[in-house]
């Protein structure tokens, strides 16, 4: 089932006017222990879109992102960000990127404002500009009441918002988020989603990795599904739904067990009419027919279930 997605097979941007800002071609990463973490990945990211890289743990998502963020040297292939070669000019491309790494702590006794100002300075903002941007970020992140609190006293969700603030403070052209909501409670996750959505609504480009179906479905314009170090499918949500033959799902409860309580039954079909025929044949009174979900697509492609 797994096939490498070649550039010519990749989908067009959501809006025709969008230009390519990040171009990855034939990216291979093989670690010293011979593990092939990324296997000839090609992907285009368009200006102003949010693309999610979806896959289970170990699929190669973080390895892929860490090569884009210049933290990891690729074995072969090319990465071009805004016409700059990421592999050859890491310092230059870092000016263009805001990154939220996975598993990264903040300085516990440093305040929210100080984090934004210090890292804004390291990203090249002058004193005056960094103060203005920190104020703006605190307001945009809805963190006014926490601005002068040490981050050690903040919840996991608020800390993650600070991380996103650090990534955004120098107004990068692209935001790279590695599993931005992993480990957060549902309320905190929604807060982070809101922040990311607002950033994209302002016309910025975001690439994020996730293993949450809901996150990918809610936030993304396009999704790339990774398995075994490869992108097995990339496209707009509707294109992904249409990529599997049996794209309709019939759900009902059977009534043939001894308790008289029906067991849930799911039947997939290639068309609405096909499922309607089953309904008539079985004489079903209560049922639902829906298009398949991203989870169904993912399962069909990879044979694995992800966290929903």
């Amino acid at each position, binding site marked *: 089932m797994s096939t490498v997605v070649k550039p010519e097979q990749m989908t067009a941007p959501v809006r025709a006017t969008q230009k390519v800002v990040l171009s990855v071609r034939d990216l291979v990463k093989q670690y010293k222990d011979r593990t092939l973490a990324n296997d000839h990945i090609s992907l285009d990211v368009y200006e102003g879109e949010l693309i999610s890289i979806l896959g289970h743990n170990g699929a190669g998502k973080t390895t892929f992102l860490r090569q884009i*963020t*210049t933290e990891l040297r690729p074995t072969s292939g090319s990465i071009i960000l805004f016409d700059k070669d990421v592999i050859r000019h890491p310092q230059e491309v870092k000016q263009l990127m805001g990154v939220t790494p996975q598993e990264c702590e903040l*300085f516990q*006794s440093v305040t929210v404002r100080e984090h934004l100002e210090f890292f804004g300075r390291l990203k090249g903002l002058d004193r005056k500009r960094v103060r203005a941007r920190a104020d703006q970020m605190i307001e945009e992140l809805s963190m006014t009441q926490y601005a002068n609190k040490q981050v050690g006293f903040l919840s996991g969700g608020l800390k993650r918002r600070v991380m996103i603030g650090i990534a955004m403070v120098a107004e990068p052209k692209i935001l790279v988020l590695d599993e931005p909501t992993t480990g957060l409670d549902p309320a905190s996750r929604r807060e982070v989603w809101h922040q990311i959505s607002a950033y994209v609504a302002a016309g910025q480009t975001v690439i994020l990795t996730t293993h949450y179906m809901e996150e990918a479905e809610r936030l993304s314009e396009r999704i790339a599904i990774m398995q075994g170090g490869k992108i097995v499918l990339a496209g707009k949500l509707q294109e992904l739904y249409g990529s599997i033959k049996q794209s309709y799902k019939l759900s009902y409860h059977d009534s043939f067990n001894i308790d008289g309580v029906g067991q849930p039954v799911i039947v997939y079909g290639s068309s609405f009419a096909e499922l309607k025929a089953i309904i008539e044949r079985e004489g079903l009174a209560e049922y639902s027919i829906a298009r398949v979900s991203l989870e169904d697509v993912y399962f069909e492609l990879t044979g694995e279930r992800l966290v929903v």
Partner: protein
Amino acid sequence: MNTLKDIAVVFRIYLTKLRGESGPFLLTSFLFPAGMYLFLSVIAGDNHLNKVQLLAGSMVFSTTMVSIMWVGYHLLEDRFRGRIKLFVTTPIRPISYIMGIVCFASMQATLGIIGLLIVGKVIGLPIHLSLLMLPLLALGMLAHTAISIIISRFATSMPQGTLITDGLGAGLVFFSPVYYNISQLPPGISHAVYILPPTFMADGLRKLLTGNSNVGIDLLVLGAMATISLLVSLKMTRWRED
């Protein structure tokens, strides 16, 4: 210019971080070396030359402890808590990050040195102060930087890393002729200690504290050691992994 600005920002980050750790910071930078020197000087009796040697030794001990243990601790903490990624993903150079932490550690070393000099004055030692102490101590600190960096890079866990930095920080001083004369060492070891920075730091400080400014050789050797140490540090601190 940018590099200096970045060093200053990294220094300020660690200085701000200190607000949660000021107690242990003051304890290790001031009380421990001063207390240790007081203890040793009481044991040394009335011999002023011995006491000056012990003072120089305590200054070296304080500086070495800070430059290996404290710098090492921050590097290890940043690596194992993932905080290093906050720096790696900014456009700053590795040297700015290292020097920012070394500058911060120097502040602690300075506090320790001032504490020791005050104790020396209080107990009535005829101490000569010299500006040459500053480059001598600074080069000594830089000469140790590579040790912290190598340990922080190859340690497999934070406890393992801190154990090695603590052991090396103290061990290096006690192996070097810091609290005693080089002639008191066994023949094999007396030659080997010439590769250790504390040997030259102690020799230079001993001379300066007794009013002898003839520390050119000590500065030269420490300068060479600091250069090698910085080159190794730069080689070992790479923002991009393979």
